[in-house]
């Protein structure tokens, strides 16, 4: 959040000189510390309880590495599918006209509001062992991908949609009148303009997929080296009272999530500078 906001460089009159303001800041800082900072400090402390070597041993444990690697792999697949399908859905919602479009548009937010355990349960009802269509994704990596796709569905759609809405259609019409087919118009005109938004949405989807837990509880078999993802590895270490192992992989997962977000937001800025 930058200081670009209106009035950022004007003299502060409103709150600056009031006696109550410092107390407000103090209470906010205290709340923040109690809720977020102290737990994060304890998490980091827990991860490094056995020093650097203890941390290193915990994250290079075979089972931990395999879980983290599987998480990255599945999250990347989910991110790529989201990049394509999110863009398609956003395009259809903005450019297409059909009855029920408004309802579909509203329902895109549902995965954000739907409790994750319910998301997993609904998928299992249709694609599980008792489902009516004879497909069973329970205890498979495909099931994990399906659940991750459901919970991350809104990210790319909601970041691409506003860009498409604001996009000038003159450019497309100019390209089309010069003889470009729909495909050429898309790859040369629309896509480059959407790319920053797609990447931004992908970053959020990837980061969410890395840490996802609730929607996978009923679907994954949680078998080490097979379909155990990082959040379940952490959970199993908590259950078996290996706090250092759990905290170390937690820190690794957090670092991965933050670096993915940073890298993708850098890429987002780079592509938006080169788009127009």
């Amino acid at each position, binding site marked *: *959040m930058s200081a670009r*906001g*209106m*009035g950022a460089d004007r003299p502060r*009159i*409103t*709150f*600056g000189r*009031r006696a109550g*303001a410092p107390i*407000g*800041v103090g209470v*906010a800082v205290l709340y923040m510390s109690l*809720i*977020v900072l102290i*737990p*994060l400090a*304890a*998490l980091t402390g*827990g991860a490094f309880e056995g020093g650097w070597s203890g941390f290193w041993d915990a994250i290079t444990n075979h089972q931990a590495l395999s879980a983290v690697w599987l998480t990255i792999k599945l999250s990347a697949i989910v991110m790529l599918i989201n990049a394509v*399908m999110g863009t*398609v859905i956003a395009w259809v919602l903005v*450019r297409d006209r059909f009855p029920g479009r408004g309802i*579909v548009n*509203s329902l*895109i937010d*549902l995965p*954000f*509001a*739907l*409790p994750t*355990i*319910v998301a997993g*349960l*609904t*998928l299992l*009802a249709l*694609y599980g062992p008792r489902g009516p269509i004879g497909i069973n994704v329970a205890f498979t990596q495909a099931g994990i991908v*399906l659940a991750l796709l459901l919970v991350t569905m809104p990210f790319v759609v*909601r970041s691409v949609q*506003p860009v498409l809405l604001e996009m000038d259609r003159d450019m497309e019409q100019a390209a089309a009148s010069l003889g470009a*087919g*729909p495909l050429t118009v898309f790859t040369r005109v629309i896509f480059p303009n959407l790319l920053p938004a797609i990447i931004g949405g992908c970053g*959020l989807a990837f*980061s969410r997929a*890395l*840490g*996802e*837990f*609730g929607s996978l*509880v009923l679907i994954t078999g949680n078998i080490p080296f097979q379909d155990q993802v990082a*959040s379940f590895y*952490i*959970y199993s270490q*908590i259950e078996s009272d290996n*706090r250092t192992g759990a905290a170390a992989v*937690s820190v690794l997962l*957090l670092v991965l*999530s933050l670096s993915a*977000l940073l890298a993708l937001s850098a890429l987002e800025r780079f592509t938006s500078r080169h788009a127009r």
Partner: protein
Amino acid sequence: MHAEASQAPHADGIDPVASARRRERRGAGVRIGLRVLALAYVAALLLGPLALVFYNTFASGAGEAWAAVTTPAALHALYLTILIALIAVPLNAVFGVAAALILVRRRVPGRPLIAALIDLPLALSPVVVGLAIVLVWGRNGWFGPALGELDIQVVFALPSMVLATIFISLPFVVREVVPVLREVGSDQEEAASTLGAGAMQTFWRITLPAIRWGIIYGVVLTTARALGEYGAVRVVSGGIAERTETLTLHVEERFQGFDYVAAYGSSMVLAVLALLVVLLMNLLNRKGGGGGHHGP
């Protein structure tokens, strides 16, 4: 292309009308193809499964579904879920408004860092949030021994579940209010202040009415997150039926116990709440003139 072009009346061999029509026809095909693809995707992932669970819930009769969601365990779980939301949401709303005012209106050192920290819960796995809370408040945690002497139980009890829910739903009000505060600017506040209004008066009369839709939108998102939280609460609560079991934990426990009617029924209660939230979000978006629309 060439065969048709040869019939064109133009000297350069291209009939602009015909080729435009051809493009249009091809465009319509692509449009319908994409529409079908998008709708099929949403139906396969979201609407189909949800509709099936609705159907399954009532397949064995509405009476049985009702009985399953009104067992003592289910009712206690619902009560606990609402209780936790009633504590966590107002606290986060007040903090969210205060933090947004501090971030936008004051010059505090390290502002980008504070903003990043407030957003951090969005990048954290719920399991990690639960673990962090256990490491502070648990028996062997930082404050564990002191709390033990005072005979206060935080972990495996209500306080830790509230703490986890607050942590998870912290960013939403801040994220919705910050852009609105930027947009309205501080002109009116400054005018009120020059006319002799105190800080409190300025806040209640000027700032709050200007940002109210942002706050309400943020509160709706916070509530949705608080009601639906699973992972963090699972780790800190132990999930003991009729004691520390929220509605989401109850769904999982019933499902694992092969009591599908109860699992589906409680899921439907939660899904209906989620649908209400989405409906509210849409109404608010229209009312607040769009605003910053970004999900969690």
